[in-house]
């Protein structure tokens, strides 16, 4: 079926590409939005990723599932975006970290609502958000996160832990 779908897309069948989009867009949009920390940027990334997939579908050799190929392409695109944004802002990292300091919300012992957590993740500072999303949400281990982000394994750990502590404050858990 994958072979047929790929062949149809390569032959210019937009309906076949729409089928691929419908099957995978939620997962890709979710990854992009969380990595970028903004639904708007996530939507732009979604467009760019699927456009790139359309252009590169010919390079899909069937070595992995089509969904895996698409996920890797999406992940690489998100990482490029994050790196390029970080390059623009690297001189200001310390300042931004200071700027994103916050008054912890009053302590709440109610269960964490999904939307509250989504918004809190958006508020995480650059660096620790990407490590948190890759490790705690997407399930990569610290070694993989370090390789993906081009950082040391210890830095991945400290960024993830820092993110959790910040989330604790945002969510009124302290």
């Amino acid at each position, binding site marked *: 079926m994958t072979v047929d779908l790929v062949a149809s897309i390569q032959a210019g069948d937009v309906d076949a590409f*729409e089928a691929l989009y419908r099957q995978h867009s*939620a997962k*890709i949009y979710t990854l992009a939005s969380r990595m970028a920390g903004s639904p708007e940027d996530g939507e732009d990334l979604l467009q760019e990723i699927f456009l790139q997939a359309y252009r590169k579908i010919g390079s899909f050799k069937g070595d992995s599932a089509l969904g895996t190929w698409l996920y890797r392409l999406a992940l690489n695109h998100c990482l490029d975006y994050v790196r390029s944004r970080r390059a623009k*802002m690297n001189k200001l990292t310390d300042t931004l970290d200071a700027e994103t300091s916050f008054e912890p919300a009053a302590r709440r012992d109610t269960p964490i609502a*999904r939307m509250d957590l989504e918004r809190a993740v958006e508020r995480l500072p650059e660096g620790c958000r990407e490590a948190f999303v890759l490790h705690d949400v997407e399930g990569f281990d610290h070694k993989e996160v370090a390789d993906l982000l081009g950082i040391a394994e210890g830095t991945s750990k400290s960024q993830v*832990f820092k993110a959790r502590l910040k*989330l*604790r404050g945002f969510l009124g858990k*302290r």
Partner: protein
Amino acid sequence: MHPNETTLNEYADGSLGAAERAGVEQHLAACASCRQLVDDLRDILRATGELEPLDAPVRAWPRLERAIRMEREHATRVTAGPHSGAAVSDPADAGSYRTYATWLAAAAALVLAAVVGMRYTPGRRAEAPAVAPAGATASATAGGAAESIETELRQAEAHYENAIKGLEAIATTERSELDPRTAATLQKNLAVIDQAISESRAAVRSEPASEPAQQSLIEGFKAKIGLLQDTVALINEMRKGNEAGAARIVSGLKQKGN
């Protein structure tokens, strides 16, 4: 002595070695604040594990489809040679229905292309130096940064306004394609967004350095562009006779209107 936060995180993760774990457990039995921290970390990990995928906005596929069709059309023209541009026909020609839909899509995509890549972030000071040069005063640096932000904001504003103008022109010309109730919903939403833009613009004029005011103005522009994109996408779906696609977009518009 309390274990450090890294150790407690690793304990909450379950990645601590047996000997260290036993030490932490001994400490937790006697320390309410560390116990609370570990409970909170576990709550966060549990909630994170239960996060669900987000739905992509309904307008995303029509936008993507337009871009793909444009790209294919462009590739065909390049292959066919310089005279193939004649495929863009007169919209008044009733027989060239599909070509006209393509023309409409192309026009919308050209406007959208102007917006792609323009990710303005209010408050971003990427170009401002992190450390003031020797001899420079703090106020001179702050003044320069403020000017740079204002210039950037003005450029972004002009950019968004151009994109909005282009989309409005398409949406206004083709609005007769929409049923009156949908057109009224769109009009109502546009009026609300216009009002918000007008208020934000006034706030930015009176306090140019205010980040919330800048943010709110840019959000207003983005909302208007999003709604106009939906409008053009809806007109396209209706022209193509794709009722399912049109229904999906209308459903998204109603949700936004609530």
